[in-house]
C-alpha cells in the first residue's frame, strides 16, 4: 500500500473517531458531564437509520434526520431523569447511571432490532473514488466533511456566541450561573441533547462502512475515551487533532500488525502518556 492511500485511509478513519468524540468532548468541556451511554446512542443512531431505510423504505438522507430526532427525544428523557445528579455535579453517580442506561438501551435495541448483523445501505458507500492511487468511497468524504463542519460549529458556538458563554459559565460553576440569570438545568439539557445527537449522527454516517450489531456501542465508545483522555479533558481542537492522529496511527499500524490490536496499541500509548503527562496533551 502506498503512502497516499494510507494517509487517505487514516484520515477517513480518524474523522470517524473525531466525529464520535465531538459530542463527548462538548459534554465534558462545556458541562463537566460524562455519559457512558454515548456508544449506545451511536449504536441507536445507526440502527434507527437502518430500520427507517429497510422497514419504512425511506431514503438514507431522510432516515438520518429520523434517527437524530428519535435519539434526541430519548436524550431528553434520560437527562430529565438525571437533572438532580447533574445539578449536584455528582460525577460518580452520573458515570454509573449512564453506564446502566447504556446497558439497558443495548438490551432494548436487542429486543427491537434482533441479534443479527445488519448493513446500512448508503448511496455514498457505493461511490468509489480514487485520488493519487488511493481508493476510497463517497462515505469517507461525507465523514471527513461532517467532522470538520461539526468541530467548526462547536468551536464557534462555544467560543463566540452567548449560548456558548452560558454553557462555559455553567461548566465553570453551575451555582454561580444561576446568579447570572441562567437556568443551569436547561443548559445541561441542551448540551446533553446536542451531544447525543452528535453521537447518533456519527452512528448514521460512520456505521455504513461495516456491518452493525446492537453490541457495537460498548466497543465503539472506547475510541471516544482514548481521544478525550489523550487530548486532555474537554479540549475541543485537541479532540479533532487526536482523533485524526489516532486514525492515521491505526491505518499505519494495520499495515504491519494484525489490525485487531491497533486499539490495544493506542491504549498502551495512552498509558504512557498518562504516566508522563497526566493532564493529556492539552497545553495548559
Amino acid at each position: 500500500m502506498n503512502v497516499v492511500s494510507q494517509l487517505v485511509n487514516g484520515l477517513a478513519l480518524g474523522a470517524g473517531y473525531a466525529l464520535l468524540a465531538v459530542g463527548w468532548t462538548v459534554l465534558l468541556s462545556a458541562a463537566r458531564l460524562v455519559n457512558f451511554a454515548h456508544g449506545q446512542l451511536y449504536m441507536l443512531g445507526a440502527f434507527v437509520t437502518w430500520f427507517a431505510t429497510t422497514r419504512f423504505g425511506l431514503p438514507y438522507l431522510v432516515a438520518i434526520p429520523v434517527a437524530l430526532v428519535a435519539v434526541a427525544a430519548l436524550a431528553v428523557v434520560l437527562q430529565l431523569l438525571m437533572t438532580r445528579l447533574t445539578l449536584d455535579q455528582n460525577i460518580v453517580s452520573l458515570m454509573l447511571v449512564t453506564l446502566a442506561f447504556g446497558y439497558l438501551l443495548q438490551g432494548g435495541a436487542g429486543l427491537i432490532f434482533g441479534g443479527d448483523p445488519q448493513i446500512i445501505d448508503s448511496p455514498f458507500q457505493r461511490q468509489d473514488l480514487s485520488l493519487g492511487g488511493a481508493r476510497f468511497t463517497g462515505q469517507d468524504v461525507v465523514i471527513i466533511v461532517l467532522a470538520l463542519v461539526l468541530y467548526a460549529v462547536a468551536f464557534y458556538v462555544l467560543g463566540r456566541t452567548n449560548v456558548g458563554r452560558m454553557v462555559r459559565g455553567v461548566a465553570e460553576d453551575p451555582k454561580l450561573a444561576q446568579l447570572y440569570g441562567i437556568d443551569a438545568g436547561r443548559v445541561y439539557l441542551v448540551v446533553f441533547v446536542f451531544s447525543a445527537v452528535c453521537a447518533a449522527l456519527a452512528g448514521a454516517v460512520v456505521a455504513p462502512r461495516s456491518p452493525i450489531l446492537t453490541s457495537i456501542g460498548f466497543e465503539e465508545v472506547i475510541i471516544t475515551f482514548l481521544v478525550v483522555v489523550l487530548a486532555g479533558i474537554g479540549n475541543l481542537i485537541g479532540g479533532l487533532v487526536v482523533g485524526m492522529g489516532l486514525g492515521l496511527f491505526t491505518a499505519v499500524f494495520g499495515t504491519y500488525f494484525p489490525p485487531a490490536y491497533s486499539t490495544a496499541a493506542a491504549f498502551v500509548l495512552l498509558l504512557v502518556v498518562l504516566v508522563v503527562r497526566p493532564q493529556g496533551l492539552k497545553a495548559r
Partner: protein
Amino acid sequence: MTTADLGTPVDAPPSAAGNRRGLPGAARALGWLVLVVLAYLLPTLLGGSDRIFATVVLIAIFAMMSYGVDIVLSYLGEVSLGHTLFWAAGAYTTALVTVNAGWSPLPALLASVAVTTVLALLLGLATLRTREFVFSLVTYAAAIIGLTVVQNTGALGGSDGIVGVPVFELPAVDGTYVARTNAELWPIALVFLVLVVLLVARFRRSRLGTTALMAQMNGDLATAMGVDVRRTRVLVFVLSAPVTALAGWLYAYQRSYVSPDLLSPTFLLFMLTAVILPGRRLLLGPLVGAALLTSQQQLASLGGDADKIVLGGVLAAALLLSPDGLIGIWRAAVQRVRGNRR
C-alpha cells in the same frame, strides 16, 4: 442476623459498633457460625436439586467477584470499571495452567492471584496521577481492550475461549476431595466466600481501610493529616484485584471453560449493581446483591436482552431513586414508623 448487622456503616464509632447489643465477642462469633452453617444447609433445605446448588454456587462466586469492586467503590469511593479484567485474568490463568500444564487448583489459584496483582499494579500506577473520572475511563478502556485482545489471541483460544478445565480436586485426609457436581463444589465455594467476607471485615477495621475512607471523605484533610492519598489508592486497588480473581478462578472450575464473555459488560454491570443495590459500605451488601441478581438470572430469567434491561434498569433506578440502596429505603421506612409512633 438482624438488620442492625447489615446496616452498620463502617464509619460508626467503633465502641458503638462493638457494644451495640451488649453481646460479648464469643456470642457474636457463635452467631456468625450459626449463620454459616445455615447457609451451608440452605440448598438442601430448598430441595437440593442441581439447579438450586448451581444457583448458590454462582451466588457465592459472583459475590466474591463483587467484593473486589466493593472494596474500591465503597471504601475508596473510586469507580473501577476494570474489574472484569481481573475476573477474566483469574479465570484465564486458571484455564491456561490447568488445561495446558495440568496444575492442580491451589497452584492455579496462586498463579491467578500473582498475574492479577501485577495487572492491577500496572494499571494502578499508570492511573496514579489522573484526576476525577479519568481513572474510570482508563480502567473501562483496559477492560474492553482486554476483550478485543483476548478475542484475537490464538494462545487464549480466541473467541472460542479455552475448554476442558479439569474437575476441581483437593488433597484431603482420605485421599482427594473431588467436586464433580455443583453440590460437591458448594462447600468449597462457601469456604472461600467466608474467607473473603472475613478479609473484607478485617480490611474495614484496618489502618488501610480507615485511611481509604478518610481519603474518600476529605482528600485534602487526609493529606493534611499526613496520609499519602495516592499510595492508599494504589494499595486498595491492588488489594481488591485478587479478590475478584479468586472468584474467576472458581468460576473456571464451575463452568469448566473460559471465554471472552467474562470481559463483557454483563459482569461489569453485575458487580456494580450487586454493590450499589443493597447499599454501599455494608459488610454483607455485595452478598445480598449477588444473591438477588443471581436468583433472578438463574430462576426467573426473561432472556438475554430482557435481563439486560432488568439489570440496567435496577442499577439506574437504585441510583436515581435511592442512592443509599435498599438499606436506605429500609432506614427511611423505620424512621417513618418511629416518627408515627411518637
